[in-house]
């Protein structure tokens, strides 16, 4: 009986240490899955990316107040037939943390929504595509900061022929490769 209890104690210690470590390593930001998109040739569809910052943490906004701070940034890896229009990040909340009340930081916490538009070009080919996206962020809590992380995402896009359903792709839209 005593031996069993000791063994149980040992197992619990290992498990709890594992749980604590796993909690520390858990992503501070999660993303909602992105629905499959359908876009007509020469047209566009609006995109919405929903992120959730874990309670007790914050991440820098897209425009942090100090040059050393790492901005939250969404980048894309796209097939040549697709273009991402200008991304619209929400404004950051200006906060001061207890440890440094004099410094104002522009941060996101809770739910964060980034808007964008997905455009096709007139020379795009119809068919199915996969768009890969990545959110780069750097999180902190009240007393510590955590190394920059990348949160990968992907969604499917179908380009179909037909009448235009949205604005024409702008020639000055971002190039069809990696963007922010």
């Amino acid at each position, binding site marked *: 009986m005593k031996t069993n*209890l000791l063994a149980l104690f040992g197992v619990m210690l290992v498990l709890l240490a594992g749980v604590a470590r796993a909690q520390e390593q858990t992503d501070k930001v999660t993303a909602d899955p992105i629905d499959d998109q359908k876009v007509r040739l020469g047209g566009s569809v609006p995109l919405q990316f929903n992120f959730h910052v874990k309670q007790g943490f914050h991440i820098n906004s897209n425009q942090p107040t100090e040059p050393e701070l790492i901005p939250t940034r969404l980048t894309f890896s796209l097939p040549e037939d697709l273009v991402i229009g200008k991304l619209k990040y929400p404004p950051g909340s200006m906060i001061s943390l207890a*440890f440094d009340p004099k*410094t104002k930081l522009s941060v996101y916490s809770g739910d964060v929504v980034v808007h964008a538009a997905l455009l096709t070009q007139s020379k795009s080919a119809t068919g199915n595509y996969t768009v890969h996206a990545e959110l780069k962020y750097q999180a902190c809590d009240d*007393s510590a900061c955590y190394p920059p992380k990348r949160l990968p995402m992907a969604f499917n896009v179908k380009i179909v022929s037909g009448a235009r359903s949205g604005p024409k792709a702008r020639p000055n839209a971002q190039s069809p490769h990696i963007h922010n």
Partner: protein
Amino acid sequence: MKNSIIFILLVVAATFGLVFSAKHMSKGGTAAAPDFTLKVLGEKDKTLQLSSLKGKAVLVNFWATWCEPCKVEMPWLVELQRKYGPQGLQILGVAQDDSDEETILAFSHKMGLNYPILQGNNHMNDLYPSQGLPLSVYVDRNGKVVQRVVGLVSESVMEDAIKQALGQGSSSDSTKSTASAK
């Protein structure tokens, strides 16, 4: 049987408490600080080995340019180095940063750091694992870790730990000041 269940529940509760309180602060006292040799930024071809500082109390402070709380404690570190340097304290700043040397040095100069800044690397993450920054490891004159602190604490807690590393008395109640820094 009933006693066994109560015992197990107590063990679980105690273990949870121990694991989570150790997240920010842990006391050493017996473990030797893992030795390392790192490049000293701003000094051509110069490296520094931790074990070469035996006989001194060493505060190994891990930081990064993107870490706001690290920045907050830097003026305190400057003051503590000035105050306790003559008594045998050596602070080492380890930049765990992807930025280039020039950027790190410019930042260090801007902050007026008066102690060596070393270029960190992934191996240091293995030697001194920590998810968060700042990480401060207090090493006594015999090369033993006396305290390891993750996250920002108050200047008085840092001073307390430095005194402990110098052998000038032990840290009284470290947890109280962790809370006061928040």
